[in-house]
């Protein structure tokens, strides 16, 4: 953090102060499942001494945010067991608790080791005991790891609590907009400023190793694609063509970008080999072709085109150049993203004049509108495919929101100031 702060001070010292320490994003759950699993996580301590962060509180918040769990409030707990042996089952049956997570921490030369167990109360059985270890400075990572393990054991789906989200904020400062590229933990904590500019910043996208971002910045007076390393803040301008330089998307193997250039007259999709710096044009059509995104196998691109008269989603197989149309319902389907199963397509869909996020099963063709908020855009799917984040409007303010892929769970992440937009969920 110190290193990043030093680099950031180049950009804007004054803004850093309010940003450090406090998370900008908070979470408001607006809809959960009907019968969430009741889980209790008593305090996890180092033989009674509190840890630098309240680990059990972080785990409770993670699990609650998934919408599938209802954590027991700490004040209702009758005892605070730290090991399986200390569990008095009746204390938990009285509360209606279904699952219990107990754990204790040991500190050795600046590192914490947490031993934790998941217990099923009704069957009075231990489901697992595991150990996680890490530096004291990254205790939140240990908490998210525990959340991932518990979530997977109960739901059968890998957790995504250790992931991050990149997004753009637009904050009015003295009548002018200031644009910021940010990265935070997916729970909104540890927010970091990556880039600050008086000109628009757009379209952040992650590298598959989650160590870099590509994005569009107008800082040169024109849109251009940049690449930036998160740890070192080293950045490089990748494109400087006349016209559009936009919508970068990193291939699953990390070697290629798909992007949009209009240097030949109208927006076309190109691929760009990062090692050779070679551009290859992939579409040839006088219509708008934009918003490319890779299929998980890296063999095809899905993209938006208005070649049929209205914006719709198409799939381009790279080896053959063959293009097929994927969406047929509605007069506006755009900015496609695929879940990691390669089968669930999410996109912006106009339904009776309103823009919402919809999912389409590419096998059955079933289309489902997932959101009912206002001016919804920029869907981004969690790596485990359970949930997606998107941008919406609340009042006149841009905020982020989330919805599960089955539409059962919804929550808002209202920002304290400015507009928040264009979330990009990290791939790991």
């Amino acid at each position, binding site marked *: 953090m110190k290193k990043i702060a030093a680099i950031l001070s180049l950009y804007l010292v004054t803004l850093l102060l309010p940003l450090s320490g406090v998370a900008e994003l908070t979470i408001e759950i607006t809809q959960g499942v009907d019968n969430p699993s009741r889980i209790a996580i008593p305090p996890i301590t180092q033989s009674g001494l509190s840890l630098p962060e309240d680990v059990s509180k972080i785990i409770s918040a993670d699990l609650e945010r998934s919408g599938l769990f209802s954590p027991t409030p700490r004040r209702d707990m009758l005892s605070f067991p730290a090991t399986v042996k200390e569990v008095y089952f009746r204390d938990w049956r009285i509360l209606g608790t279904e699952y219990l997570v107990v754990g204790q921490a040991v500190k050795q030369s600046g590192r914490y080791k947490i031993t934790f167990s998941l217990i099923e109360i009704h069957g009075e059985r231990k489901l697992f005991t595991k150990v996680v270890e890490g530096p004291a400075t990254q205790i939140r990572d240990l908490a998210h790891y525990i959340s991932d393990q518990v979530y997977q054991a109960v739901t059968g789906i890998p957790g995504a609590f250790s992931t991050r989200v990149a997004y753009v904020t637009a904050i009015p400062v003295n009548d002018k907009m200031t644009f910021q590229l940010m990265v935070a933990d997916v729970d909104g904590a540890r927010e970091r400023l990556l880039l600050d500019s008086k000109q628009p910043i757009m379209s952040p996208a992650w590298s598959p190793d989650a160590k870099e971002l590509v994005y569009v910045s107008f800082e040169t*007076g024109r849109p251009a694609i940049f690449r930036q390393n998160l740890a070192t803040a080293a950045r490089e301008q990748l494109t400087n063509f006349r016209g559009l330089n936009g919508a970068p998307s990193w291939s699953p193997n990390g070697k290629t970008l798909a992007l949009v250039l209009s240097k030949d007259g109208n927006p076309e999709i190109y691929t760009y080999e990062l090692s050779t710096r070679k551009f290859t044009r992939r579409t040839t059509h006088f219509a708008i072709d934009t918003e490319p995104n890779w299929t998980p196998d890296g063999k095809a691109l899905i993209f*938006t085109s208005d070649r049929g008269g209205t914006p719709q989603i198409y799939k381009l197989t790279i080896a053959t150049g063959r293009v097929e149309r994927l969406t047929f319902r509605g007069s506006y389907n755009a900015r496609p993203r695929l879940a990691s199963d390669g089968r669930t397509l999410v996109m912006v869909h106009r339904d009776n004049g309103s823009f919402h996020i919809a999912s389409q099963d590419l096998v059955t063709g079933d289309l489902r509108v997932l959101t009912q908020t206002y001016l919804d855009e920029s869907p981004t799917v969690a790596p485990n495919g359970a949930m997606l984040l998107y941008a919406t409007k609340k009042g006149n303010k841009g905020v982020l929101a989330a919805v599960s892929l089955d539409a059962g769970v919804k929550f808002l992440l209202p920002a304290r100031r400015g507009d928040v937009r264009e979330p990009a969920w990290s791939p790991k």
Partner: protein
Amino acid sequence: MKTQLLKYGVMATFLTALLAGCSSTDTTDTSGAGGTATVPSNQVSTGTAGSGGISGSSLDADSSVARTFYFEFDKAILNSEARAALRIHAQTLRSTPANIRLEGHADERGTREYNMALGERRGNSARDFLIQEGVNGALIEVISYGEESPASLDSNDASWALNRRVELK
């Protein structure tokens, strides 16, 4: 016609002076296409070449002629007011060539990168019209801002109508 020519003559002198001062904001050079460049990090906080630098300085032949042209949703067709105004700008540019920027914009509805493409399509409509009216295309650069730089921040029909626009700069 004579007085008009005289007026343009005066303008030309004025413009030459102005443009000399503005040479660093030359907008036609894209020869660097394809290459990569390392951008000094200080440009991120100071780079304002996109909007402030050249607005209203070039081409002020007649301040009563509209420099902002409006469009329908998801459309890039110039209306009659826009064509009338562009015709006058074309006349000025033919007699007094100057580099211009056509900045295309979209309202906030729809997706951001699609709106970038739409903003460019609107800018291209204005550019094509100027070329058709005899303006040298090499003087014109089209830049799309998509929905990123709205003229009005509200989310309603009136605001959206103001935001679907091309600005001549």
